[in-house]
């Protein structure tokens, strides 16, 4: 099975959730997460592969911009179109206060210190909402285990 975390930007909260899901997020230092706040990964539009969890599920993060619900519906539609089900791909959207701020942080050019500003602001937003991300990940893990 593949698990895809969706958000406004793939290199912020969905990436943190994906790392939590795989059990790779141990240090509580967001800067240690590979690709965190790196807009390069987000611009490509490809799902960002994080790792496999202990059950062998491949976990990904993806940023779809400001319309996350529309993104989720269309990706689920594509899944059905290609003859796959939620047993093949689970799509989970994450909504956080400040998610659009993080999305726009990706647009600041690196030459203007974009990465540092992005890292600073995103760090604050994600740490404030960390419990919410953790709960969503725990709920999803429990849900997958039941099925």
């Amino acid at each position, binding site marked *: 099975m593949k698990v*895809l975390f969706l958000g406004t930007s793939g290199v912020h909260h969905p990436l943190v959730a994906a790392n939590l899901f795989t059990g790779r997020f141990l240090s509580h230092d967001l800067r240690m997460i590979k690709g965190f706040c790196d807009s390069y990964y987000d611009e490509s539009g490809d*799902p960002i592969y994080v790792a496999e969890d202990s059950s062998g599920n491949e976990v990904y993060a993806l940023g779809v911009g400001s*319309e996350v619900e529309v*993104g989720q519906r269309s990706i689920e*539609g594509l899944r059905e*179109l*290609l003859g796959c089900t939620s047993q093949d791909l689970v799509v989970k959207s994450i909504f956080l206060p400040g998610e659009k701020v993080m999305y726009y942080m990706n647009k600041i050019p690196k030459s203007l210190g974009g990465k540092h500003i992005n890292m600073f602001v995103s760090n604050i937003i994600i740490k404030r909402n960390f419990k919410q991300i953790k709960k969503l990940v725990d709920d999803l893990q429990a849900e997958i285990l039941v099925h």
Partner: protein
Amino acid sequence: MKILYHCFGGSHSSVLAASLHLGLISKERLPTMQEMMALPYFDKTSQKDFGSIRFMGVDEGGNEVYVLGKKSLGDRYNRIFKGVAALLGKPDEIVPVDCMSRVNISMKLGGFASRRVGWVRLGRPVLGQGTRKAFLNLVNLVEITRVQVMNKLQVN
């Protein structure tokens, strides 16, 4: 293969492109507003249709043709769709086509007035005029897509 035409609302340019692809409307002459209105989904969608992939028909090569309204998800959407298809192990089964590059300001304004604000009587004539202006561009986009699909099928 599945061909997916997408635009902002999934109501005008993508529907017209899919209809041209399927031969539901002639590419030889500019369509009238009545002909466009007779097309399935043309200027008939609502807010809840955003993100829903809708079936339009099967072309002569057996390819399924769909339309989608992606709202403001932008031009990255082709890559997102290809990326997700690759994730599912079916990267060559989908051909996403972004119609937004062929849309003019009259189509945007008319479509916004008709679908978003609900000013159908004001928006529809502006939309019709814009669509007729963009028609040959859409014909061109469909022809390019058909060639791409044929090439893909030959490679596979």
